[in-house]
């Protein structure tokens, strides 16, 4: 499992939450959290994030 977020970049806009097909993400007061059990590493959240805060899989 590799879903990572750069919390310094994240603006807490919820864009990633909206496009997650498995409801693995949630926007909380402390930023976005992932439910690793649910994440299927589809990459949607990484693509849509306006600031590039999320990295899924091993592209980098």
């Amino acid at each position, binding site marked *: 499992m590799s879903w990572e977020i750069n919390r310094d970049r994240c*603006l*807490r*806009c*919820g*864009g*990633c*939450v*909206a*496009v*997650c*097909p498995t*409801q693995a993400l*949630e*926007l909380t*007061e402390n930023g976005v959290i992932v439910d690793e059990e649910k994440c299927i590493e*589809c990459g*949607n959240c990484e*693509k*849509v*994030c*306006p*600031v*590039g805060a999320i990295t899924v899989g091993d592209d980098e």
Partner: protein
Amino acid sequence: MKDVVVVGAGPAGCSVAKELAEEGYDVVVYEKRQEIGAPKRCGEGLSSSAVDNLGLDIPEYCRMQSMDGALVYSPNGDSVRIHSDETVGWILERKTFDKWMAERAAKAGAKVRAKAKVVDLLPENRGVVVEIEGERKKVESRMVIAAGGVESLIAKKTEVKDQSDLEVVDSGYQYEMVNLDLKDENKLELYFGDEVAPRGYVWVFPKGENKANVGIGIAGDLDETAKHYLDRFIENNERFSKASIVEVNSGMIPVGGLLENMVADNFMAVGDAANQVNPIHGGGIREGIKAGQIASEVASRALEKDDTTKEELEIYNHMWWEERGKSLRKVEKLREVLEDLDDEDLNYLAKKLDGQDLMDFTQGKRLSKLGKLLLKRPKMIKSARKLL
């Protein structure tokens, strides 16, 4: 037991809550953020026709600047000037506007609570579990209205909404800037082109006194981020060199994927939670408030009859599609065609079209004119037919 729990105190949630409270229903609105309206996820533009249609009496302190038109730039720098002698729209301050909307709901009798997060639905959507200061409690109600915006997990829970198709979402990013040279302080500036904003555009929305929201919305499935494109646009423009950034915003805009069904038993979704935005410019304030008004009418009747089943609430689907959905569907087609255009096509159109044409197109009117023009571009014939 409450009559209605509304999840989310954005424009859509506060609109439906106000109307239902005015009818005498016992309504509570939960908002998870500590401050309603902040930080904004919005360029803050609202047209005068929307304000009239919605019957909103927006106080002056929420209206930052009046607009009388727009300057639309094609990739080669040519521009189309849209001008009206009257005010055609406003740039709002969402922080105060959203709070004003919440105040209206509260004055009508609804109970609004900030920093209260809805974490689950009760069985049959007869209420919610809400978390306030770390404590969870059950709040029973006759029905639930989801107005949680794009990230509405509540709407997802009922399977009314799925937004995982990246082709129909835009990724947005914005700076509120001050000390900026504006071309015209009463006109929106819009910039198109593959270099500037692939399958989208850059906007400059003046907020008065050399302030503006400078933002971008681009297709959600690109390799580079919205931030990347906006930063480049700003770097390449000398006139931003003296400007300062006073706020940074981002967000996702559901520019496609209008929903046929927005209800379940004892449940309705309004606003961004139901993908109700204008597919061409991404405006959702008007759509959210309008949907709230329509939903309240249907909910009010259903509550009175004591029948809030899906079958009864489906009237909302029909009414919304009749009033908003059909015209938004036309605009959606326009969007599909625009996405097929390359820079040369855009430059060509900028020469052939005037301000009135552009105004009409964004409302889904006279699209056949655009279709006919595109028929003259051999590789655009297929797209052109969609508009004829």
